[in-house]
């Protein structure tokens, strides 16, 4: 474990977030989730703690901490409620992309607002007919003087309604082959919780199995106008959107891996406790070997998920390509979350099926992690491709 000794500062940061999660999140998360209610107070505390600025450089009002520290924070939040990490993640990815690919002006303008959580952000790539196959998106952005006119429909935009900024991928040149060369990223500004001219955001958002409390919406663009200055990376960014969004989603993958690791740990912790409290056939169920086997597997998965996630975070942080590591972490940690939540359900017996206990929430939240930020099938393809490249004969 030597590469993953926490620094004193990381330990203190994790302890503070853990304290918040134990005191303010765990006791209330299921109630909010069942009511599909946005956790305003929790988000305010996250803002006051400075979590939105974690990875944003200090010169822009953030804390300039690494992706590994961010991943540790996400694990803790997700241990309490995955939705909180989803609320943070839109702003995290936007800041990540603007920092790496934005113009100086865009950095100066948006990074301080994102760091202080004055505005929150959404990331919008997916369309109704195109998720994994990003290159087949249809959304167009046509130049008209100093503006671009956006038309098309986006789908599954988490934070779509409450955000003040949307990172949006559109086609500025629909004729290129391959299509990705005609794609450009936009930083679309809007007033939160409104339908601006040319943009309709149907609310309430899409109905979901889990991941409730934060809205995932459609965005319907109909001659929506955004200034040319909103192109991510300025004029030089035209045609580079696909690449920018892929780098954003790669950082996002580490974040989803961290959610998986956090959820896997939550399922384990609840099970460890329940296995000692619940008795069957004259002894705590944790003394029955079948339950012990599950606990052992759960703990191993949770620990491996954590380590793969931290490894990917450190690799990505160091710069350079990290798709193999991020892919492995995302794939393994989110499958671990799914398997641990299923085992937690088994260990809790009938109470695992009850809304009074938490495993049912874990069980509904985990599948999203296997689908979002690049499905786990796609992750396996990335891993295999990368391996074949590396080990060419």
């Amino acid at each position, binding site marked *: 474990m030597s590469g993953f000794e926490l620094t004193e*500062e990381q330990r*203190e*940061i994790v302890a*503070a977030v853990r*304290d*918040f999660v134990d005191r303010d999140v765990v006791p209330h998360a299921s109630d909010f989730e069942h009511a599909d209610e946005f956790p305003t107070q929790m988000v305010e*505390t996250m803002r*006051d*703690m*400075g*979590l939105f*600025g*974690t990875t944003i450089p200090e010169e822009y009002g953030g*804390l300039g*901490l690494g992706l590994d520290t961010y991943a540790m924070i996400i694990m803790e939040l997700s241990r309490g409620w995955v939705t909180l990490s989803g609320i943070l993640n839109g702003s995290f990815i936007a800041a990540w992309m603007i920092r790496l690919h934005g113009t100086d002006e865009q950095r100066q303008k948006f990074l301080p607002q994102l760091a202080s959580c004055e505005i929150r952000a959404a990331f919008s790539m997916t369309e109704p007919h195109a998720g994994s196959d990003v290159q087949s998106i249809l959304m167009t952005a046509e130049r008209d003087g100093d503006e671009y006119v956006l038309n098309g429909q986006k789908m599954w935009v988490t934070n779509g309604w409450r955000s003040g900024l949307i990172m949006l991928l559109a086609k500025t040149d629909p004729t290129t082959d391959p299509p990705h060369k005609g794609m450009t990223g936009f930083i679309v500004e809007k007033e939160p919780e409104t339908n601006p001219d040319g943009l309709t955001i149907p609310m309430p958002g899409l109905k979901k199995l889990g991941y409730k409390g934060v809205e995932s919406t459609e965005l319907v663009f109909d001659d929506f106008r955004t200034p040319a200055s909103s192109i991510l990376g300025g004029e030089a960014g035209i045609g580079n959107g696909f690449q920018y969004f892929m780098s954003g989603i790669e950082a996002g993958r580490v974040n989803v891996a961290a959610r998986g690791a956090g959820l896997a740990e939550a399922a384990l912790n609840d099970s460890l406790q329940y296995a000692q409290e619940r008795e069957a056939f004259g002894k705590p169920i944790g003394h029955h070997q079948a339950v012990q086997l599950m606990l052992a597997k759960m703990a191993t998965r949770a620990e491996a998920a954590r380590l793969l996630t931290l490894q990917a975070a450190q690799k990505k942080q160091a710069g350079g390509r990290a798709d193999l590591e991020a892919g492995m972490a995302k794939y393994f940690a989110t499958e671990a979350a799914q398997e641990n939540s299923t085992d937690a359900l088994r260990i809790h017996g009938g109470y695992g099926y009850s809304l009074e206990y938490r495993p049912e929430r874990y069980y509904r939240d985990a599948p999203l992690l296997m689908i979002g930020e690049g499905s786990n099938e796609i992750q396996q393809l990335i891993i295999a491709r990368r391996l074949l490249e590396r080990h060419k004969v």
Partner: protein
Amino acid sequence: MNQGDTNAIEAALRLKEAAGDCEVVLVSMGPDDAINSLRKGLAMGADRATLVSDTGAAGSDIVGTTNVLAAVLTHETPDLILFGQQSADSDGAVLWAAVADRLRQPVISQATSLDLSEGKATVKRQTEYGYDVIEAPLPCVIAVSDGINEPRYPSLKGIMGAKKKPQAIVTLESLGVGAEQAGTAGSRTEVKSLNDPPARGDSQLIEGDGEAAARVLAFLNEKKLT
């Protein structure tokens, strides 16, 4: 850090935020690594910390501890001394009273609200039946209850900045506390043994057999509780 102490720090920080020109200083006695606990208070927003760490202070009972803390506080001359209501280990809830006595200052405990104005503290003290409103001239000692506030979480920025805040580790000698006043030598009590609380007296289980209410009533009457 004791939960009660985080309430005291929160109360101090709120007073500072309202008053502006003042300083929140954390004071503790303990081994060197107690500075890590104090750093959490610095991360919450306190300005500096003083820890008395000295092998000569090990084993201090309340008398020894009071001698040491009173020495630091005499040195600091604060306008207000805040304590948590009780410690998490032994749930003593006496130290603040002893320190106040040693400093010859007024003391108010179980504070659920606290206002400072015109050189005096006004405190609502929680009692079994409601509240007492008590005033005391400053300087004074106040022990806050856990109901006084909801302690803030340290911000990431606070955590990162805490290390750079002044943290003094001082010895008994530098405080002018003699060896005979602290540690086992300065203590006046000796723990002979520790035992579990005695088992509760006989309990009586009244089952719902149709007569239960009458039997509960008879029991209460017998105990003169009706």
